[in-house]
């Protein structure tokens, strides 16, 4: 009732610029929350797993929807800017995988830590940077989060350690961050992400060993999108049960639609399900915080784009497969359907969020294309930390740059 009066008075005062339909929306009675069933996770060396039901509040639902839509639109804008050659070099997009970055963030605290590989734009956003800073970094401008010096694969934020270009190298780093968490004793955990391709690397197993030996609060997360660049998991791995690869480390797998022909199980709606990811993350974080040591999580997900913008993504998989995932398991669509069907939000309201998100992305893209490049004088900056300024040699002995910490 109070809401309705407030809405009506806003309209009558003329101060509101929202369309009349907003009044109707605000006055409609939405549910405050709804309970959903989520798929059970596959478990390895665990007696029990995350719960199979979860409560989603309207507020959280709207927040997750907005975040996922923002990541989606931001990645699509990056695609556009890359094709216009305004973004150069490498650009690995995560559209399709939004449930992972938003769901993981929903299951942890901002004071927890996260490190991932190069498919990092979504995580950069969920860890707190603005779309402006991210797009401006992609376009190599001084307003970028790394002042234009890092580019797509080298974005950092508070408690977010990038953005790493060399496959798998971030995993031992993540174990190290977890070591720091344990040492500092502040009950923080580190989410250490890698893909199905990196999962076969030796350094991953070394990190598993150390984390288990020293009971580090490290959640190893394998974002399994079924393809390591152009190699399908079946051709790359002797065992595709990535959640079991930690052997002595307990693991859980958040399943997702397995599409395409062949002797595979039929589609199940899971790892593209943000609520499933959230619950699994909460479970894993609680496990680590209790001092039991590391845990492994496999998120079965899917990327719509190719490996990077240089890869059309259709030479090793069919367009039909991509289309099937898009139509049956799109994470944003799944959340939207759930919210609308349980009266947590209306279609119009979500459409409005879409419009707002689009505007935010457009504004950010404008900034990212108009902002100037970093000044040449700063080429030598930030080589060392906490050091007095020194001279840096350029292309020959007469070209000098100043280096400032």
């Amino acid at each position, binding site marked *: 009732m109070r809401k309705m009066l407030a809405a009506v008075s806003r309209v009558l005062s003329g101060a509101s610029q929202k369309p009349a339909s907003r009044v109707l929306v605000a006055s409609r009675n939405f549910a405050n929350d709804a309970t959903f069933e989520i798929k059970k996770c596959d478990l390895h060396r665990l007696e029990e797993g995350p719960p199979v039901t979860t409560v989603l509040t309207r507020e959280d639902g709207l927040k997750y929807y907005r975040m996922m839509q923002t990541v989606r639109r931001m990645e699509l804008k990056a695609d556009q800017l890359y094709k216009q050659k305004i973004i*150069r*070099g*490498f650009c690995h997009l995560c559209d399709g995988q939004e449930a992972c970055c938003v769901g993981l963030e929903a299951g942890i605290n901002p004071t927890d830590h996260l490190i991932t590989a190069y498919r990092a734009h979504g995580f950069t956003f969920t860890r707190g940077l603005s779309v402006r800073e991210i797009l401006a970094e992609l376009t*190599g*401008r*001084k307003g970028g989060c*790394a002042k*234009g*010096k*890092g*580019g*797509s*694969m*080298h974005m950092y934020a508070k408690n977010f350690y990038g953005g*790493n*270009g*060399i*496959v*798998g*190298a971030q995993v031992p780093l993540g174990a190290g961050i977890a070591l720091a968490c344990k040492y500092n004793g502040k009950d923080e955990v580190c989410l250490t992400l890698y*893909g199905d*391709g*990196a999962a*076969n*690397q030796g*350094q991953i197993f070394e990190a598993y060993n150390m984390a288990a030996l020293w009971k580090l609060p490290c959640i190893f997360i394998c974002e399994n999108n079924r393809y*390591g*660049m*152009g*190699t399908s998991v079946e*051709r*790359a791995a002797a065992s595709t049960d990535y959640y079991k690869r930690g052997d002595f480390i307990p693991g859980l797998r958040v399943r997702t639609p397995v599409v395409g022909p062949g002797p595979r199980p039929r589609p199940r709606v899971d790892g593209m399900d943000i609520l499933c990811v959230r619950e699994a993350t909460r479970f894993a974080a609680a496990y680590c915080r209790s001092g039991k040591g590391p845990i492994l999580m496999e998120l079965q997900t899917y990327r719509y784009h190719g*490996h990077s913008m240089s890869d059309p993504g259709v030479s090793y998989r069919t367009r039909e497969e991509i289309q099937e995932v898009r139509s049956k398991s799109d994470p944003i669509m799944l959340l939207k359907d759930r919210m609308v069907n349980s009266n947590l939000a209306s279609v119009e309201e979500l459409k409005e969020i879409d419009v707002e998100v689009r505007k935010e992305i457009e504004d950010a893209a404008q900034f990212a294309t108009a902002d100037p*490049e*970093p000044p*040449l004088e*700063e*080429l*030598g900056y930030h*080589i060392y930390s906490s050091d007095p300024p020194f001279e*840096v*040699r*350029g*292309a*020959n*002995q*007469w*070209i000098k*740059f100043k280096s400032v910490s």
Partner: protein
Amino acid sequence: MAAVSGLVRRPLREVSGLLKRRFHWTAPAALQAGLRPICEFMTFNFSMQAIDQVINSAAKTYYMSGGLQPVPIVFRGPNGASAGVAAQHSQCFAAWYGHCPGLKVVSPWNSEDAKGLIKSAIRDNNPVVVLENELMYGVPFEFPPEAQSKDFLIPIGKAKIERQGTHITVVSHSRPVGHCLEAAAVLSKEGVECEVINMRTIRPMDMETIEASVMKTNHLVTVEGGWPQFGVGAEICARIMEGPAFNFLDAPAVRVTGADVPMPYAKILEDNSIPQVKDIIFAIKKTLNI
């Protein structure tokens, strides 16, 4: 990745985009069974994750075994800066690999270099690192008739004089050779004739060709894409001082290199982090005092 096909009779190739270093572990063992492996890196930046095997399992083995166990293996892939790939993907490894006894290191510039050097590398009974360049893969060159033979080989350890000159010796390898030739063309209009040497091999370095040229021109500029400290140019300058050519220098030798910074992403910064034609021209003029 398709570059090697056609060069070997019966390739046994498994391609996996992200298992970049695994082949290092299996390749040296494969050769003990009489095979001649060619190990391809997506770029040499990833070789750092496997560099132990390149040095300790490949380079040193013949020596450590007292001549019992040769290692006829080839490591190839793109090296150095590309375009906009930022710090972790732009490093030049010429000096890193060139530092190690037991390895041979070649660095092709044009198409005939690429063909002749990789064939020699495969036929060599030693571990050979072939530092290619991604930006050169798409550049077309005139391919002389003799290069079209299937037995066309370029000897490892021999540089090529790409352009004769009398006023100054400009020594380079890989993509910068093209920039040196561009600089030479510009300077030629001003009456300065540069002798441009394409090293082709980093190790063993062809100092004879470089020294003979310096003894003729009395001036030396080295050009490379890698970082200045402990680089290819630094080695050339040190060796010049040890040999007969030193007394023929009319001015100190000068190096043109990549800037001494991790490769930045923003275009203006990246452009200024690699040797440009203008930097080469400037260095040449400074050396000649013009």
